[in-house]
């Protein structure tokens, strides 16, 4: 089927279509069944039989519908695959897929895998051999063709790496493979970047395999090039490989534990670079351990920050305080340090400026021409050095004059040296270039920087090793020495332009920055016993997607000097000790994102996001399902039920309603209903009764509570809402102050969780009024009535207080009316409540109450039947012995119970109010 971009997974299934004529016959002779209708006056029209009365044949359109349905199912089962024209590949020859698996490929890895997968699956369908090659994992025994299924497995095992693998080494394997497999097709899933050797590789590949297919993502790659912890903000600098239109996003800063510290927005607009700023306090900025571009999952979009990125706190002390700005060493130091350090200057006139600054926790202490010979100061400085601090000293007249100051990295010759002066025989000296061992290595020393005066070091042994910078004649200018875990550094000149013009140069700033940056590293990484020159073992390694994980087996220790870029043995990640890791980032300042130029090479270029084969099975089955639905509707319509049930006019509306119902999932609707009911219950206090399932009992409960509700609204200040029927197994009980539960002994016991819910309800202050309704059946000393037995059975699982018959002066009989008992349809049944504490001392209290409300009342007088009133306010049910007075007393009892549930034992105290007032009065 070359004329159609359509192929089938199992074309032989299409043979089933040959059976269609059989289906045609079958469908034709079985019309949908007619609808049967009883019609008594049938004999009036019995003789009207028309020749076309019985449609023995299915209507043609229905036939077509059903045939189409069957054909769709058959075709769907055959596994049709629609292949776009651009993606049609060779039908013969093996396939080799080259996969770029450096971090730039991680960003759209899923697309890459899918693209490779679709090609490998096509090869699998055609039974062609295939091979997969990832540049980071070259097969040692060369590239061999295997079946496409194995190649698929190989493909799924490939994950992007956090470095840029070189491509050239793979060329040998590829050429060997192409020699073995003559008509092999090459597909290169390129990340589109130059990386290490992209251009050269592309040229040689084009020569090896002309017409190879290159798939790359035209959207390019984004990465974080660097981060700068500046004066007020931490800036992340972003780059991207192609200016493929506006691209804006967000960079997130995370601390070492992965908590987000802040977000910074960036916008490339149409350029290649962007900046995201984090305006955070310096302490928080120092906590930042990782920056990542949100939504871009690659190691290049992650910037790991180590101690080198921390903004140091630098303390400044100058010997001479009150000099004019341009002559003050403080002025030059402050201007030079402020872009990258957090400056602390001792308050003028402070008694112990060094101590004060050290107390503030500085990392670097700069002493500009200060005499450090005072024992107290010396002690503090020694301790500071021992604990890892850096002391940077500048020479000056005071220091040179101090006799017993020996806090220097080198021994100093007394008396300074002046060059180019009247007493000098030499002109001012320029700086020499920096040694490789010097931290200043890489900085250029401008020729105009000259030193005219300096303090001199004694030419002791080891002076060279301690010298970081020297003059053109070899005189040490900056010397340093490790002291404890810290470092002591001496500039042999002043920090002001008096002795040299170094402080006026940009080199001065760069030197100070190096010192300050290095201060942190030296201070933090050095542990007791650790060799500073040793290799740093891998600690946590990034994978290609930018997630930190345990180091893989092939990761090796990092040289202390660091590496310019990660490689296969040293993937990007954190190295060194957990306390002070060194970060090796996948992408850094020194690297470039150069797009690979394929122009002029014999490649077929494709877009990763381009069209790929579509499996038509699911759409066909869905279509078949819709046709089946249409068929069902048609059957209903043919059967004549349609017009009967819905009417042709309403049909559209009903269909629309059905569609809407389908669109709205039922669960939210249900939740809404429940919420509505509970919300109403919560907004309006109302009485509630438990539905027993006995319709008569439930009706009496409803009528009784309705009457009681009306009575309450009429007589008291409490206006309850309409009473509510409760299912204690499902409804929320907490909203109801009182639940009336008539016992229906012939109903089954509720589920065990009902007992738990009722118990919880009682515990949180609810009152359940059980009514056994059997006052007329009770015999003193006799067996328990069925209702009692039922209630005992139910309550045995509930933790209840001891119960006792309510004494006549119980507070429940005093809350609103003064009553003798709870009366309902009967009037002689007992009422049980929580037993009161035994009375002590005072007899004849008007009202008895314990602490709080009894959680349970068990009545037996069929209260609801007593409460229920008709519209004239008379008893709805016959009462025993009867009379309007009994109905009134029943309602009063109900009012009292509700008041008891609502006000608790407050009424027991209120009866004493007269006595209390008398006591309070004069």
């Amino acid at each position, binding site marked *: 089927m070359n004329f159609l971009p359509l192929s089938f997974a199992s074309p032989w299934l299409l043979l089933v279509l040959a059976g269609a004529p059989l289906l045609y016959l079958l469908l034709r002779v079985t019309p949908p069944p007619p609808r049967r209708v009883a019609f008594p*006056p049938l004999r*009036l029209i019995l003789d009207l039989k*028309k020749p076309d009365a*019985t449609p023995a044949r299915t209507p043609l359109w229905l036939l077509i519908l059903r045939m189409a349905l069957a054909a769709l199912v058959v075709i769907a089962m055959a596994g049709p695959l629609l292949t776009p024209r651009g993606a049609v590949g060779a039908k013969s020859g093996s396939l080799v897929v080259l996969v770029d698996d450096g971090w730039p490929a991680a960003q759209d890895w899923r697309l890459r895998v899918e693209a490779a997968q679709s090609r490998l699956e096509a090869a699998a369908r055609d039974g062609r051999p295939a091979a997969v090659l990832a540049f980071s994992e070259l097969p040692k025994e060369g590239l061999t063709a295997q079946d496409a299924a194995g190649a698929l497995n190989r493909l799924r095992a490939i994950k992007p790496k956090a470095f840029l693998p070189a491509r050239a080494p793979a060329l040998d394997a590829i050429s060997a493979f192409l020699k073995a497999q003559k008509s092999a097709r090459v597909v290169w899933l390129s990340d589109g970047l130059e990386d290490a050797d992209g251009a050269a590789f592309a040229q040689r590949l084009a020569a090896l395999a002309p017409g190879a297919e290159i798939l790359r993502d035209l959207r390019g790659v984004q990465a974080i090039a660097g981060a700068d912890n500046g004066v007020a903000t931490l800036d992340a600098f972003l780059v991207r490989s192609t200016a493929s239109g506006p691209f804006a996003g967000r960079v997130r800063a995370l601390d070492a534990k992965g908590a987000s510290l802040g977000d910074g927005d960036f916008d490339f607009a149409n350029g290649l670079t962007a900046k995201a700023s984090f305006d955070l306090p310096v302490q928080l900025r120092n906590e930042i351990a990782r920056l990542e571009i949100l939504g871009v999952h690659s190691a290049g979009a992650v910037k790991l920050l180590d101690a080198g990125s921390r903004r140091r706190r630098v303390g400044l002390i100058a010997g001479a305080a009150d000099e004019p700005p341009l002559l003050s060493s403080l002025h030059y130091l402050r201007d030079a340090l402020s872009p990258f350090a957090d400056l602390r200057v001792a308050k003028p006139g402070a008694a112990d400026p060094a101590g004060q600054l050290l107390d503030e926790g500085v990392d670097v202490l700069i002493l500009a021409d200060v005499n450090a010979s005072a024992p107290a100061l010396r002690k503090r400085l020694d301790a500071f050095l021992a604990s890892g601090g850096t002391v940077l000293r500048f020479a000056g007249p005071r220091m040179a004059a101090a006799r017993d100051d020996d806090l220097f990295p080198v021994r100093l010759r007394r008396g300074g040296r002046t060059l180019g002066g009247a007493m000098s025989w030499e002109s001012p000296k320029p700086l020499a270039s920096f040694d490789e061992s010097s931290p200043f290595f890489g900085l250029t020393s401008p020729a105009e920087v000259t030193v005219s005066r300096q303090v001199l070091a004694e030419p002791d042994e080891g002076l060279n090793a301690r010298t970081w910078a020297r003059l053109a004649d070899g005189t040490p200018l900056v010397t340093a020495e490790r002291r404890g875990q810290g470092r002591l550094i001496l500039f042999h000149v002043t920090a002001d332009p008096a002795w040299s013009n170094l402080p006026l140069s940009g080199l001065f700033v760069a030197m100070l920055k190096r010192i300050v940056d290095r201060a942190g590293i030296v201070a933090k990484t050095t542990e007791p016993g650790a060799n500073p020159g040793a290799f740093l073992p891998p600690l946590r390694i990034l994978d290609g997607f930018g997630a930190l994980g345990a180091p893989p087996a092939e990761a090796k220790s990092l040289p202390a000097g660091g590496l310019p870029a990660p490689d296969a043995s040293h993937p990007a990640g954190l190295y060194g000790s957990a306390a002070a890791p060194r970060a090796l980032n996948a992408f850094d300042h020194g690297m470039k994102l150069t797009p690979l130029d394929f122009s002029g090479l014999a490649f077929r270029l494709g877009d990763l996001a381009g069209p790929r084969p579509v499996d038509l099975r699911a759409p066909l089955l869905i279509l078949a399902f819709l046709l089946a639905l249409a068929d069902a509707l048609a059957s209903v319509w043919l059967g004549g039920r349609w017009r009967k049930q819905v009417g042709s006019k309403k049909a559209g509306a009903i269909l629309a309603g059905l569609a809407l119902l389908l669109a709205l999932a039922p669960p939210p609707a249900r939740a809404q209903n429940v919420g509505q009911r509970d919300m109403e219950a919560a907004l309006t206090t109302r009485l509630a009764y438990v539905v027993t399932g006995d319709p008569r009992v439930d009706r009496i409960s409803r009528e009784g509570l309705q009457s009681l509700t009306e009575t309450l609204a009429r007589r008291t200040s409490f206006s309850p809402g309409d009473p509510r029927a409760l299912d204690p197994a499902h409804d929320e009980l907490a909203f109801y102050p009182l639940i009336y539960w008539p016992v229906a002994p012939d109903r089954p016991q509720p589920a065990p969780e009902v007992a738990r819910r009722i118990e919880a309800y009682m515990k949180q202050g609810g009152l359940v009024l059980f009514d056994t309704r059997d006052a007329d059946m009770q015999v003193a000393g006799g067996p328990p009535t069925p209702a009692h037995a039922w209630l005992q059975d139910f309550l045995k699982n509930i933790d209840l207080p001891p119960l006792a018959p309510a004494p006549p002066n119980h507070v429940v009989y005093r809350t609103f009316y003064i009553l003798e008992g709870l009366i309902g349809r009967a009037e002689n049944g007992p009422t049980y409540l929580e037993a009161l504490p035994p009375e002590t001392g005072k007899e004849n209290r008007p009202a008895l109450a314990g602490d709080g409300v009894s959680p349970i009342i068990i009545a037996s007088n069929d209260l609801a039947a007593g409460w229920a009133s008709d519209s004239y306010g008379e008893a709805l049910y016959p009462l025993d012995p009867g009379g309007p007075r009994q109905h009134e007393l029943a309602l009063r009892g109900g009012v009292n119970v509700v008041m008891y549930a609502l006000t608790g034992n407050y009424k027991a105290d209120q009866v004493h109010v007269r006595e209390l007032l008398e006591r309070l009065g004069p």
Partner: protein
Amino acid sequence: MARKLGKDFSFLPSAAARPDHDKRVQALDLARRLPALALSARQAAASAQAGLHGRRRAGVGENFWQFRPFIPGEAAQNVDWRRSARDDRLYVRQREWEAAQVLWVWADLSGSMNYRSDHGAQSKLDRALILALALADSTVRAGERAGWLGLTRLSAARDIVDSLAVALIAQERASDGAFADLPQAAPLRMREKAALIGDFLVDVADFAACLQRLSAQGARGHALMIFDPAEEDFPFSGQTEFYDEAGDLLRAGRAEDYAAPYQARLAAHREALAAAARAQGWTFALHSTARPASEALLNLRLALTADGAR
């Protein structure tokens, strides 16, 4: 026999045809809502039954009519001693001859009546039975006499509804649930009245013969044709298979094609029934089960009492 096939358009089970308690209560309820049915007084004159209608002559009755002189040889107990004590002659108190009207009710309880569509409030049978019982009750309460045509004797008892129901149930047992669709009764006597309630889905000739037989001695009556709304509107469409209680089948490819011919035939059938009734001096009316039963009862009562205008 009725087959329960779907919720709509099927015959009800035959058990539903019993004049059970609910229907009796409904009938009584309906009858109580209307004033007692007093049949036309003029018709009462010739009736031999004791009843309300004074006949302006002495006879058996309740009300005083006249005193007449005692005829010697008469039984002494006839003497009205109170009146006779006033003068020297003896008098006999005579009462006015009061006669009662007679109404025979009959309802069609055959299988075709046991039908109710979604549009009908009740099955035709229920409606007919209730109307018949209500009519009987109403008649008796008016002091007249009533009976079920061909089934019971005339009665003026207050519990006539119950007694008719008992008789109907006995009849149902005896005939195994099969009822005729026209009354099989002997001719009625002159001045007696009859109310026939049914769907009259019978041959017009049979209907005419039945009326002729009933009114052979001059009796008159009223025929009320009850129909279900579905029987009038013919609300069917699409492929439909019709069946009736007799087992007839009609398979219609497009039921809507049958609507117009059916309605024409129904109208013709009704017209023929009405003509047959008029020929015997009967009145004929229609009643849909979608309408309230009280409406039909009111119309029945009007038809039975207002025939003096004829």
